[in-house]
């Protein structure tokens, strides 16, 4: 250190002396003017090599030596004429200016080199970090790099909950502090702005860590007594930025993992429900077969006993429908794949009416649809279930022997259809809740039928609503029309 400081000045003084000797040597042979310019070369070189102060030393030395040996009166430090004075002055000014220029050039170059090496290091680190499949591994690379910076004692990255993901171990309540910083979003002891970090020391002598909350976690840094220099602070800011990027990536990966987990659990749920429904339906099947056998007159039971058997069979049938509805709803919620095809809507209505023949007996059903309805592009089974549910609901509410209307009209890209009955209006407060799962107006309802309708319509990208018309409640829904032009029009 000492040598490095002394050498430039020694060279400056030695150089000035050597040039003085050279000038004396030249002047011994020929009277040449303006030889003082030789000093300029030295000053220029010293300034470029070692900066300002050695150059100033060289120029002063040159000035004094030149004055002493060559400026009349020779042998003294006095100056005779104004031309010599000017010469000396120029020497000094040139020395100062060139050394200034040279040293600023040197500083710029040094900064550029440092920045280049910094960005190369960062680039290599970022490449390595972003390539490593594990976010935690990539983060530990960043932490390693950050902790070798002078003025940084510890550097760690935590999850939003303060759990350490990479870097130095956390001590005492740092995990809790990090979690708090994440929750409040307020940095403690450090701030980032303009591409660099700023260390904020509130209590200079307390060794406390700084917390910097980011998108997917928190960076915890403990600085040494002396803060890192400006260059290192910039590097640190870049590393913190990289850590932020990696945390964000980790968060995205964690979310994707959770989504996969949810999807798997949805599938599992559907599989379990399918299996449970199967297990529930088998005993119901035996019950219904036995009860209907008992209820037949040939079984020889008294009329009262036959009625009891029929009552039990009705309850078993209800149970069967509930199990079926639960399964259908859970499948829809798990996101069943729709098997969409172009279908004639009137055909589907016909199938639904046929399916509910027994329930519809005693009701007057009107189909209000034109002959030239374009085909819809829907899942036959799902929309069949929807129609059956809405018609069944209508039979529950329509007056005895009353009318049920099922209508349809085509609009630009969708079919609007409705099922209406002449029963009592739906209380206005219930209009919004009527499609909620387990919401029912009937003492015996499962609260699943209309929820299933809503899911079916939504799966087809349509809408469904309930409203009270003059005659009675009406359910209106939309279905997508088929994109094919030439389709069956029955």
């Amino acid at each position, binding site marked *: 250190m000492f040598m490095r400081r002394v050498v430039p000045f020694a060279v400056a003084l030695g150089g000035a002396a050597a040039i003085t000797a050279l000038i004396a040597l030249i002047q011994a042979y020929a009277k040449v003017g303006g030889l003082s310019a030789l000093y300029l070369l030295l000053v220029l070189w010293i300034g470029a090599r070692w900066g300002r102060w050695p150059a100033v030393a060289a120029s002063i030395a040159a000035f004094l030596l030149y004055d002493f040996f060559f400026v009349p009166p020779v042998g003294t430090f006095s100056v005779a004429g104004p031309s010599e004075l000017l010469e000396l002055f120029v020497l000094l000014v040139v020395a100062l200016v060139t050394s200034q220029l040279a040293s600023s050039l040197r500083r710029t170059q040094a900064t550029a080199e440092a920045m280049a090496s910094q960005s190369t290091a960062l680039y290599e680190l970022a490449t390595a970090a972003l390539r490593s499949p594990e976010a935690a591994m990539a983060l530990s690379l960043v932490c390693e790099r950050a902790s070798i910076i002078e003025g940084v004692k510890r550097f760690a990255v935590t999850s939003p909950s303060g759990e350490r993901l990479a870097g130095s171990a956390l001590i005492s309540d740092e995990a809790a502090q990090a979690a708090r910083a994440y929750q409040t979003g307020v940095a403690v002891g450090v701030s980032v702005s303009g591409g660099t970090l700023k260390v904020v020391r509130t209590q200079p002598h307390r060794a406390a860590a700084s917390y910097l909350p980011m998108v997917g976690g928190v960076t915890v840094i403990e600085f040494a007594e002396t803060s890192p220099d400006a260059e290192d602070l910039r590097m640190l800011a870049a590393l913190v930025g990289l850590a932020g990027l990696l945390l964000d990536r980790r968060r995205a990966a964690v979310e994707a993992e959770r989504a996969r987990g949810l999807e798997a659990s949805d599938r599992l749920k559907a599989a379990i429900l*399918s299996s449970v*429904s*199967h297990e529930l*339906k*088998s005993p*119901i*099947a*035996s*019950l*219904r*077969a*036995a009860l*209907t*056998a008992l209820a*037949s007159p*040939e*079984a020889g039971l008294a009329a009262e006993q036959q009625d009891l058997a029929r009552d039990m*069979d009705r309850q*078993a*049938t209800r149970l*069967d429908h509930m199990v*079926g509805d639960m*399964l259908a709803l859970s499948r829809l919620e798990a996101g069943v794949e729709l098997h969409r*095809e*172009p*279908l*004639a809507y*009137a*055909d*589907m*209505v*016909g*199938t639904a*009416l*046929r399916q509910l023949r027994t329930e519809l007996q005693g009701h007057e059903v009107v*189909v209000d*649809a034109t002959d030239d309805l374009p085909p819809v592009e829907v899942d*036959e*089974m799902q929309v*069949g279930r929807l129609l059956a549910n809405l018609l069944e609901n209508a039979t529950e509410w329509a007056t005895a022997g009353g009318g049920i209307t099922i209508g349809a009209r085509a609009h630009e890209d969708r079919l609007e259809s409705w099922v209406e009955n002449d029963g009592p209006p739906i209380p206005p407060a219930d209009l919004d809740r009527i499609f909620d799962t387990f919401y029912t107006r009937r003492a015996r309802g499962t609260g699943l039928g209309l929820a299933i309708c809503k899911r079916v319509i939504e799966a087809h990208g349509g809408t469904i609503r309930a409203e009270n018309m003059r005659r009675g409640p009406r359910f209106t829904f939309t279905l997508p029309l088929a994109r094919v032009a030439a*389709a*069956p*029009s*029955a």
Partner: protein
Amino acid sequence: MSGGRVLVVDDEVEMQRALRAGLKYHGFDVRTAGSGEEALRESSSWRPDVVLLDLGLPGMDGFETLASMRPATRAAIIVVSVMPGEKDKVRALDAGADDYVVKPFGTEELVARIRAVLRRQADISSGEPVVRSGDLEIDLARRTVTVKGRPVRLTPTEYELLRYLALHAGKPVTHTTLLREVWGDYAIGDSYNTRYVVAQIRKKLGDDPANPRYIVSEPGVGYRLEP
């Protein structure tokens, strides 16, 4: 007098007992089998008229039993299943089942189905060339179709489809079977073709798709001509 012989194939003893009783009350002779192997033995020795075959059998499953039984018996086979997917129904029908019934069911519903397949078998063996469905008459010998006595002009494709449904009146016929039977083994197409032709036939017969009298849609499966 016996209404016919019914072989019940189901692995649940309670179901066997309930069906044996229920079908007996409706005049059928009933035997039961708890497995596919037993069902095959019974069907060849006892020669039932109808086999009720549950698809969910342990060991040799329903589809295997169906495949082995179909070529060896003239009995009508009604497939029974808890929550069959549409694919299962189509597969069973294409493998030669005459009908399917979804569990749980009541005895009356089952008896109606059994009587329907028995009636159909009797019609087919009688060799009657005219098939009737309400006002619709299809004369298979003379290749004519009339509604209330008025002739209906069908294209060859339309007639072939209607003829196939008439030959299997009352039985659900799958889209794939119709495609194969009407358009040939190398037919390329899907249910869209059959839907289109059925729509045309319905129009010509004056059948309302929202309330069909003759050709009934079997959702997810195909079509059936009402007997």
